[in-house]
Structure formats: structure tokens, C-alpha cells
């Protein structure tokens, strides 16, 4: 039924949007998991690899996925005529807030995770822990925000 009312040329941008969003969520979950593992440990041999893996996941997977999600969102929104609405629906508002606000938080998280991992690595686990922990909190918040956004985009509450 939904397919019947969706023109065929909306499908490709929607596919890219969904793909980008799901990869982004996966990258955030992977990064948050590794950061949480680092949080619970003291030995540098445990903390440093987890912090490094978390940063690399955010930088090499989450950031490109965010761009794919966001650019494809603009493409599909343009095709659906959602970019010039006088009053945007709730689900679209949630999508915009989480995409753009989340993008800024993601960038901060990547920077903190990167600097934190570097300091931990150079100081043999002595310095940089706080930065990694802040990045962890941001990553967990982003996971929660994007799960809510996914629910809103799919269920489209009024």
C-alpha cells in the first residue's frame, strides 16, 4: 500500500537514507560499546585499544554514514516536497533535530575520542580518560536519539 503511493524515483534516495542511517546507528553502537568496555577497565593494555578502536569507528564509519544519511535525507525531502512546508509534521521535526543536532554531537564526540585515545596512548593510559568518557556519554546519547528518530521516521507519529 505504501509502495503504491510512493513514486519509483523516490526509492533510490530513500534506500541511501536508510542505509546511511542504519550504518550510522551501527557505528555509534560499536563505538559506544568499545568506549564502555574501556570505561570499566584500568589496565592500559585494555583501555588504549578500546579507545583507539572507538575513535576509528566514529571517524571512518560514523562520519561518512552521517553524510550519506543527511544528504540522502535532503534529496528525498526535496523529492517529496517536504523542504518548503509551512508547518512541518512532528516526525520530520524529530528527524531534522536529531540529524543536525546529532551531527554536531557526533563531531564533538569524534574530536574528544581522537584526542583522548591519542593522550591515553602516549601516556600509557595515564591521561585522556576524561575525554574518552565524555565521548562515551555523547555516543550513548546519540544512540538513544537515533533510535527515537528511527521510530519517528518509520512510525510517523502526528
Amino acid at each position: 500500500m505504501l509502495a503504491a503511493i510512493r513514486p519509483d524515483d523516490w526509492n533510490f534516495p530513500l534506500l541511501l537514507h536508510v542505509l546511511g542511517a542504519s550504518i550510522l546507528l551501527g557505528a555509534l553502537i560499536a563505538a559506544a560499546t568499545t568506549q564502555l568496555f574501556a570505561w570499566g577497565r584500568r589496565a592500559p593494555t585494555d583501555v588504549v585499544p578500546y579507545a583507539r578502536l572507538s575513535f576509528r569507528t566514529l571517524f571512518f564509519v560514523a562520519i561518512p554514514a552521517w553524510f550519506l544519511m543527511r544528504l540522502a535525507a535532503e534529496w528525498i525531502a526535496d523529492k517529496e516536497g517536504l523542504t518548503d512546508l509551512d508547518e512541518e509534521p512532528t516526525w520530520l521535526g524529530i528527524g531534522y533535530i536529531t540529524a543536525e543536532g546529532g551531527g554536531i554531537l557526533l563531531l564533538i564526540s569524534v574530536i574528544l575520542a581522537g584526542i583522548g585515545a591519542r593522550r591515553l596512548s602516549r601516556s600509557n593510559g595515564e591521561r585522556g580518560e576524561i575525554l574518552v568518557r565524555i565521548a562515551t556519554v555523547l555516543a550513548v546519547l546519540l544512540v538513544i536519539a537515533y533510535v527515537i528518530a528511527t521510530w519517528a521516521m518509520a512510525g510517523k507519529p502526528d
Partner: protein
Amino acid sequence: MGLTDWLLALHVLAAFSWVAALVVYTVVIVAGWRLTVPSDVVRMFRVSRVGDALIAVGMLGTIIFGIWLALDVDGYQLWDGWIITALVLWLVAGALGGREGKVYNAARDRAVALVNEGRDAPSPELGAMLRSQRGVVFHGLMVVVTLAILVVMIYKPGA
């Protein structure tokens, strides 16, 4: 939100969980590619446990809410070509995931055994298990099949 909206939302969330699991597994496979020290391998595989939970939620959620959705929405039938295609691909993904799991679980179990035996020196055998061509092929096929399911779900050919 009505029942259909909830079913669709839960179905999509489950699909996201599935893709998220594949991202987690990919991160673990790439990160483990050059590892040979058993304790490093054990550490890396802790992350994959989250992938195990995500893939279980993803596969069960997509099939349960997907079938429920097909029964709930008047315009869909379980025997529609695109739904049957998706169900077949789901089964293929399940089989591939099982085989992939066996390959990497063997590497994880070997690493745990070596650590428990107090043998934490670099192990070429363990490195070879982690760089298994079979594991990479199964994982690659799993990604392709998942992408195919996503394409079928969005394009709904024949609907």
C-alpha cells in the same frame, strides 16, 4: 499511532538492529585482522557480543513484525512475490550468519583456550583463523544479502 504504524516502526527498528550488527561485526573483523596475541583477540571479541544481541533482535524482529505487518495491511499478502523473495533472502541470511558465526566463534574459542592455558604469545594459527577467507566470504555474502533485502523492502518489486 495505530497498530500498523507501530508494526512498521518496530519492523524498521529491527532492520536497523540487523544492519547495526553487521557494522559491529565488520568493525571486529577489520580490527582483528592483524591480531595474533590471544588476549588481544579475546578483548576484541567482547565487542562482538553486542553484535550477537543486535542480530538476534534484528532477525527475529524483522520476521515477526514483517509477517504481522503483511497480515495487517490490506494491500499486502504473504504470497506477494516481493514478500516471498524477502523471506527466502531472510532464510539465506540466517544460514550464512550461522556459518560465519562458526568460523569466528572457533577463532574466539581458540583464543580463550590459549589465554586460559597461560599461552599469550603471538599465535600464527590464531592469526590465520582470524584472516580466514571463508569467514570474509560468508560475511561479504551476508552483507550483500542484507542489502538485497533492503532493496526488496524499499522497491517492493511487483507490488
